[in-house]
């Protein structure tokens, strides 16, 4: 009973916060809604007994969202003074949301303790679930059966990295701290100075 209740709570909140992600006018708010969506998705994962994926969702996605947050703040033209002014006003709201998240976590874990949701019998042709913990099972197939895909996914990430560097890296002309000592030593007076015998009253042409 409690699992079903928890399921509907998490599911409704995932959808509601996902809607808010695209409805919020302030980009920073959307990012916060995104975090809430991930938390609730993690709650759903806990309910079906996929605790490893739940942990990944929280650690990786919420971590990634922190980075995303940084990017949003860096790239968009956001008035920080205004944001800070809102901080005190929004502080109680923030506390409430934090409390809700904490309550949800406790509720979710409590629901999980009461036994996970039974999703029905697996009917497909996939290999049967091992009688081991999530982490052990994923590790067992990831580095054996899916070695090829694992490596390929690594390449995809490498491409993303190369792309980011190629598209953003610029060679600054000159630049600081580039003292070419050989060039300085090789410099000789004949190239650096010009001797002129100017005629009086006619000026100099260099």
């Amino acid at each position, binding site marked *: 009973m409690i699992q079903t209740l928890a399921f509907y709570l998490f599911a409704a909140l995932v959808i509601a916060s996902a809607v808010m992600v695209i409805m919020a006018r302030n980009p920073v708010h959307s990012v916060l809604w995104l975090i809430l969506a991930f938390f609730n998705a993690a709650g759903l994962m806990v309910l079906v007994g996929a605790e490893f994926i739940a942990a990944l969702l929280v650690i990786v996605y919420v971590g990634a969202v922190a980075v995303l947050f940084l990017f949003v703040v860096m790239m968009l033209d956001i008035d920080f003074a205004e944001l800070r002014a809102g901080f005190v006003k929004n502080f109680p709201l923030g506390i409430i949301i934090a409390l809700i998240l904490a309550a949800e976590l406790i509720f979710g874990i409590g629901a999980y303790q009461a036994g996970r949701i039974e999703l029905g019998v*697996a*009917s*497909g*042709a*996939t290999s049967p679930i091992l009688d081991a913990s999530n982490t052990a099972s994923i590790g067992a197939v990831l580095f054996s*059966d*899916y*070695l*090829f*895909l694992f490596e*390929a*996914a690594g*390449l*995809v990430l*490498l*491409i*993303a990295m*190369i*792309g980011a*560097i*190629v*598209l953003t890296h*610029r060679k600054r002309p000159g630049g600081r701290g580039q003292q070419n000592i050989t060039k300085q030593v090789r410099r000789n007076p004949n190239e650096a100075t010009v001797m002129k015998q100017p005629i009086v009253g006619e000026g100099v042409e260099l």
Partner: protein
Amino acid sequence: MSYATSFYLTGAEIGLSLAALALLLVAAWTGTKSARIVTILSVAALVGAAIFSMGLFDRAAGEVAGRAYGDLYRADAFGSFAKILIYLAAAAILVVTPRFFTQRASYRAEYPVLMLFNAVGMGMMVSATDLMTLYIGLEMSSLSSYVLASFLKEDSRSSEAGLKYFVLGALASGIILYGVSLVYGFTGSTNYEGIRAAFDAGFSTGALFGVVFVLAGLAFKVSAVPFHMWTPDVYEGAPTPVTAFFATAPKVAAMAMLLRMAMDPFGGEVDSWRQIVIFAALASIVVGALGAIGQQNLKRLLAYSSINNVGFILIGLAAATPAGVAASLTYLAIYVAMVLGSFTALLMLRDPAGNNLETFTDISGLSTKRPALAWALLALMFSLAGIPPLFGFWGKFVVFQAAVQADLVALAAIGIAASVIGAFYYLKFIKVMFFDEPLREIETESPASHWAVLAICVAIISPLGYLLTLPLGDWTAQAAASFVAAM
């Protein structure tokens, strides 16, 4: 399954990845200086991978398809055929690329490296027999394509093209992924054989949704009509060599992936997707032909031409027979030669200052300034229009033949009628080149590398190409038989 066999079967991908990683290190340490040598080595790696795939093609023809990594990947004749096309097209593009970028002082050694990674991804796409392999290959290829599209950082049109391609490509990936999740949910398997077996046992409406979403996403990738809007913008904005690349290798990869997807896991449910493919085919032919008429920019024109050609290739798929798949592959091979030739010719059109020319006014009267180039373009355009002595006609012929054999006479008839509309702008191209007054100064010399690529393409699409019909027919039939034999 032993790892040794699996490694051998995926040799082309592994070799290309290692080459790309090594060249990436070279690029990182030596910077732009080594761009030229990295390009040459990349071309060598791609040609090597193509030769390796030819070896696999012969081998795969003799025995049951070579499955690697527990059927995540299949090195069969079909995959090898598509890969040979992809690798050779990518190598040819690399040959004609550096001049364009060096003229703008923005060629970097990362370009060929990204091209190699792209080729790895495309190879995975065409050989995938598992939805996960398919998706990772697709992302690998798309991600490097986005970067290539915006490679000219200083040019706002190039950045715009990259951004548009990225946003719409991500949308398409999302659609595919949603379809994949539905298919997996209703079949319990991501493996093509498993999906097919599950569909044979029962095909629910939910699964149909999945199939439709996957096909729609793939239609995005091949730019078939309801999902073609990005093509002209991206093709116009991207640097010309990159546009040439988009119109050839990734198109082959996406098309081959679509063929395998439709005929292997969804092969038992032909009736449920056939009308979608027929609609996409006809709409692509008509929109491609009508949309091109008003275009002044030659890259946009070729973009519409590629939409038009995708329609013809889809007719082969609509037939849903081994002959239809073989016909689509034949058309793809000829299409690659035609498009590669057209874009190489476009790259050779520069004013004396070295700026690329890409509008109709620029090419008017080309026949008096650059007769050889004008005649080559004439052959290419006639071939694209499907005028008989040239090889482009053969592609259309086999596709329509397959459609008629599959009792899709109406489809073939409408296709033939619409290809007459398409002929209009190809002829306009020729008219402008041969009968209009020259308006622009045009650079009179082009490097031998461009001439070589152009000459090979023109030789293939010239009547000499008909010498290829028999072997091409054999190869494509073998390739098609390697996975639609069960029909």
